[in-house]
């Protein structure tokens, strides 16, 4: 059972007055992460929405020491910080409990330009948590395609819809044999909170990916952020799971789809709520294109069901 949302700590690490858009899912998620991590942490960001919204120099909307680092280097820079604080502690130059070192990057900084350094940090099993808040596009630069953009999506660089499916980044991270991997999304805040609490207690590399429906990029009413997040999970377009030392378990409601107790909702309604799909699904080939997207979703569920059976 997930922790009740009513029992989450009062602590707020995301401060009022930051520069995020209304209904920003990344900021909502970061608020939950802050409740789980507490103040003893060092936050690393790569250029992304969350840097744009953290506040202008010298102000800061997050209550941690924060460093914005070069785009391609979340994994290596976080490694630098965690090694620095650990050796300084060994040498008696760092007082108090060692802080949690975490990077907070978008899907561009994780799937694309950030992948090389992140993969290497995972292979070295560095003692960090990498969070990917995944809004399925380069939202900060005005919505361009990324490796996390699903097939059929309109972005400014896929004006007739993206032709390729997204890649399964969380699974790729799992295949690095790291101690903990999890997926989450803002409609299930207690699930996210519990996963972060668990990650904090584990030494080594942790990866948590949070689906972040972005009203600007996905083209829906900003009041509907949480609803879109929930629809993504209920349709199976986003799967909730975690893996402790390689053993995958699914979280509800995804677990019910995997076990076959319940079928996910068809993706149609989820797609038509979003301008990024619906504007391309008006033509004579709409049925085929929806079927293609549904096929990608069905394949991922089937694949993850089988993948979870492998544990050595």
């Amino acid at each position, binding site marked *: 059972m997930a922790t009740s949302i009513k029992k989450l700590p009062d602590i707020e690490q995301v401060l009022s007055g930051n520069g995020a858009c209304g209904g920003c899912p990344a900021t909502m998620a970061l608020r939950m992460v802050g409740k789980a991590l507490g103040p003893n942490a*060092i936050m690393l960001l790569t250029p992304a929405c969350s840097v*744009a919204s953290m506040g*202008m120099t*010298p102000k800061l909307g997050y209550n941690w020491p924060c460093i914005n680092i070069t785009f391609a*280097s979340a994994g290596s820079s976080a490694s*630098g910080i965690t*090694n*620095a604080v650990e050796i300084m502690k060994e*040498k008696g130059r760092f007082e108090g409990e060692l802080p949690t070192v975490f990077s907070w990057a978008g899907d561009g900084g994780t799937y694309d330009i950030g992948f090389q*350094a992140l993969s290497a940090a995972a292979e070295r099993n560095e003692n960090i948590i990498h969070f990917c808040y995944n809004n399925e596009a380069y939202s900060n630069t005005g919505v361009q395609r990324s490796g996390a953009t699903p097939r059929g999506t309109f972005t400014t660089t896929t004006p007739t819809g993206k032709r390729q499916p997204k890649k399964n980044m969380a699974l790729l991270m799992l295949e690095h044999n790291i101690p903990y991997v999890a997926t989450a999304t803002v409609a299930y805040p207690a699930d996210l909170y519990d996963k972060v609490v668990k990650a904090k207690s584990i030494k080594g590399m942790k990866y948590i990916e949070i689906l972040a429906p972005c009203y600007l990029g996905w083209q829906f009413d900003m009041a509907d952020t949480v609803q879109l997040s929930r629809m993504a999970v209920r349709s199976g377009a986003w799967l909730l799971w975690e893996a402790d030392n390689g053993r995958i378990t699914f979280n509800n409601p995804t677990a019910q789809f995997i076990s076959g107790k319940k079928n996910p909702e068809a993706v149609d309604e989820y797609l038509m709520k979003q301008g990024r799909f619906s504007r391309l699904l008006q033509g004579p080939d709409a049925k085929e294109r929806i079927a293609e997207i549904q096929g990608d979703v069905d394949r991922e569920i089937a694949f993850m069901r089988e993948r979870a059976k492998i544990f050595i």
Partner: protein
Amino acid sequence: MKTAQVIMATGANAAALAVKSARVDVIPGYPITPQTSIMEAVAGMVESGDLHARFIPVEGEHSVLAAAVAASAAGARVFTATSANGLLYMHEVLHMASGGRLPVVLCNVNRGIFAPWTLWADHQDSFAQRDTGWIQYHCSSNQEVFNTILQAFRVAEQINIPIMVNFDGFSISHCLMPLTIPAQEDIDRFLPPHQPEWRLDPAHPSSFSNVTMAAEYAPFRQMLSDDIMAAVPLVKQAAQEYRDCTGMWDGDTIETYRLEDAEVVALAVNSMAAELKLSVDILRGQGIKAGLLRPRLYIPFPADDIIQALPKNAQVMVLDRNYNFGHPGGILAAELKSILFGRRNDVTVKNRVMGIGGIDLTRRFMAAEIRAMIDEQNGVL
């Protein structure tokens, strides 16, 4: 001063031993010829416990420097090393380090740039990083590499600007020379532990390099420019205090040889400048009043010291081991001419490019080149 130890060491080993003497905390590394030997030596020292530090074997040079700047922001003393295309791959992060005012010390073992592929020394790699906001030393011996790394930490941490210590691949990095290692007590007196004014500290949350409007950005950049210029007296002070603590001296911003009465002045950097002392002797033997001026410091370019050191009516022969594309000749000559303009109209400057891609620069070859330059009526400037 305690008794120093004298050993035989390559330039790469000298660099690694300096890292140990400096009690560095974090060393991210990635192999590239001819620098690799430094990282191998450092990794070995960390593994054996001779150096109490963390070696982070990352997956490329961009990540090397990204790990380095982040570790430095967390308050650690940080060293790394690279060469040629590795340095170019770091280019973005070089700017992050200087703009972020993070006192990382980096050894660049000079090597020609790909393409076409070459393994051997020239100075295109470090000179191409001129405008990255790093202080740059160029060294001419194994001992100077050791000494300069310690001085670089001293200066970098005083002024919060990263420093690049350059020396030639193979002719320095892979050649054995006697190396004097001062007693650790003397080095500790010269280089106290790193105590940054600011670091990433959960007890004091603050932002680092987030979005900055022009009203703040412009003063940050101006401060960096001003502080790089202000490094000259600190470089001199570090060289003098290092001499006080260890008895060793390589020059401060410049080194000179038989310069006082010289009519012909050879000007060059790195190992070729050590060889040039012998060329100067050859030329003196031929009745030419030759001398040497070697800038040890390239950034900031030691304008006042060069202008003061050049004898009256000197004919300066700049030997560049790099190209200044878009101009005939090399980068050092352009730097020299820019500082002489309006200040030393008595001085003439001639320039040749040589030693590219590791072509051997012997004392006789360079003496002959200088003779030919003297004979040129209107040589290529």
